[in-house]
């Protein structure tokens, strides 16, 4: 029950099948990593879980703690505890980072409840300090003019404020310099808990040195083709993905 369970998911975009019967279970308390070649559908999976309308779910099911995730609105999924750190975060001109976060937190309050502004800012500043984000970023428009690395840090800040039950991090490590990578990884590690599951999408073993995954999955041809422990990342680093093509040929 306490897991994000993806069952036999088949997804198309513009008539083209990207995911083809993908199954994966991420229990609370675990960190899973997904690796795979460019264009294999990792971001597609992340966006389908978030509820992006461009993707057509042809079959399959996703249960989040037993709830039918695919039946929920995008914002409902978020409020129910699903978070996606985007590979390419969007810029929202005119909306300050602080206002955005405040509204997102407020959206989670029950009716009649009001946001404690003082406590909110205290928490926000504390988390910004931990993630090495300058406080002046609260007044800047969401992601507008942020460098690639600043955007990624900002995603982690949002995750930290919203405290989701399940978080998918789509290539949060790409574009980060070495110090930033460590800071972001520490941020994620602080959030690891028995009440939270993570799905990390990455191309590099380096991130997994900092955030140790419980399992690593390889996505190719629309499904998970291999699952292993953290040593699988090292192996992939060595061999690349050529073996998949050979395997695919073999089964064809």
């Amino acid at each position: 029950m306490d897991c994000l369970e993806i069952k036999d998911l088949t997804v198309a975009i513009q008539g083209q099948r990207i995911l083809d019967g993908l199954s994966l279970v991420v229990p609370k308390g675990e960190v899973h990593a997904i690796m795979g070649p460019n264009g294999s559908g990792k971001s597609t999976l992340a966006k389908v879980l978030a509820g992006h309308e461009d993707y057509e779910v042809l079959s399959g099911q996703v249960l989040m703690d037993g709830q039918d995730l695919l039946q929920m609105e995008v914002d409902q999924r978020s409020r129910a505890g699903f978070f996606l750190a985007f590979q390419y975060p969007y810029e929202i001109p005119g909306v300050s980072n602080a206002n955005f976060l405040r509204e997102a937190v407020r959206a989670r309050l029950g009716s009649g409840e009001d946001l404690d502004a003082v406590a909110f800012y205290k928490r926000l500043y504390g988390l910004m300090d931990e993630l090495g984000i300058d406080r002046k970023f609260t007044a800047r428009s969401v992601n507008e003019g942020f460098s690639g690395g600043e955007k990624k840090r900002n995603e982690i800040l949002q995750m930290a404020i919203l405290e989701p039950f399940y978080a998918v991090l789509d290539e949060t490590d790409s574009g980060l310099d070495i110090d930033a990578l460590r800071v972001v990884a520490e941020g994620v590690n602080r959030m690891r808990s028995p009440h939270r599951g993570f799905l990390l999408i990455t191309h590099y073993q380096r991130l997994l040195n900092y955030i140790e995954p419980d399992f690593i999955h390889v996505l190719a041809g629309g499904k998970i083709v291999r699952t292993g422990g953290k040593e699988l990342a090292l192996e992939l680093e060595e061999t690349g993905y050529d073996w998949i093509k050979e395997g695919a040929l073999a089964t064809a």
Partner: protein
Amino acid sequence: MSEESATLDAVLIDQSQGNFAYPEDYELDAGRGLGPSTLDYISEVKGEDQWIRDFRHRALEVFERKPMPTHWASRELDEIKFQDIRYYLAKGKRPTRSWDEVPDDVKKTFERLGIPERERGFLAGVEAQFDSEAAYSNIKEEFDKQGVIFVNSSEGLREHPEIFRRWFGKVIPTGDNKFSALNSAVFSGGSFIYVPPGVKVKHPLQAYFRINAEQFGQFERTLIIVDEGAEVMYMEGCTAPKFETATLHSAVVELVAMPHAKIQYITVQNWSSNVFNLVTKRGLAHEGAEIRWIDCNIGSRLTMKYPGVIMKGRKARGEVISIALANTGQHQDTGAKMIHAADETTSNIVSKSISMGEGRATYRGQVHIPKHLKGCRNNTECDALLINSRSRTDTYPAITVRGNRHATQHEASVSQVSEEQIFYMRQRGLTEAAAMSLSVNGFVNDLVREFPMEYSVELKRLIDLEMEGSVG
């Protein structure tokens, strides 16, 4: 109407957006259509002098002669059927100074709109107009004692002819455009304000214009004269219920700021989506005087409004700050007119428009600085926000600056809130409406700060309602 939009309407009523109407019960009704007898009826009811009767008849001739401005403006204007409209509807009672004496349905209307409450709260005076005539008009004693006049236009004409006649029709001549001519022929209601030299009215004066009847035209006429060194802030609010048929609102507003006077004129318009809102507003600023138009247009079928300032005296200042929100089925055609007619005059235009769904926003500006002047300045900024790709926005800034002894600056921008941005915000838990409101509020935030507190709160609420309505 679908079930969904029916429940939505019910919600909006609760939130007093203004979509409700009381049964019609008028003693005075000029009937449908427009002709010389319509004007005579209005003059008769009001007991007007011959000069104003002549003024009306001349205006009707000008109106009939002038073509519709559809060669440059919107074809939608052709949808107005002048012969189907009722030009004068009133209860036949003079406005009272006490809410208790206001007819019940009218009183309830203004209570639902929160007017008496505001009056007690922070206003210096209130005038509440219901269709053609004011139902209530009152000014707090302290300003009355200082000689501030705040009455409806008929009373101004009757009781203060010496001031009224001197300025009436001088800032906006009858023939300025087809709709100013129409207003000059059939005008009724609106405010007349006079502030004596040196008097600074600390609290705002508020007028509220309410259309209750269907297929009706509201033609208020407002004249504000602020004498030397005096100051006033005037605010108008407008609403009408949602009818099936077109309703016409065509006002003329003239402001006169004597030397070193200051006038701020604030409009929060929230007409329902069937109202044609064709308004002419202009101010005359004498030496060292300042006129600011702060204009917020939400709703209406078509709004055409270009507040202007003629800077007639040295160092006069003119400003137009406007926010326009065009939702599906609406066209906001707004802008500003700045006529520099003396040295060292300064004008500032900041316009922000938001187009949503299939809504359309147009900015038209005119800045005129003639060659023989020196030291004039203009700053024009117009920014457009498009929410989703079907919206449309056009900018027609016309800045005629002759001579080289002036400074002008012009900036324009268009930004988009795409579906992807909305998706991103929704992923963080915001509903679609909340995401749109947040973007819109972010976009207009610096202008909203120009409004008095009570109004910026209302404005934000109106924007939220409009966003909720648009996602359905």
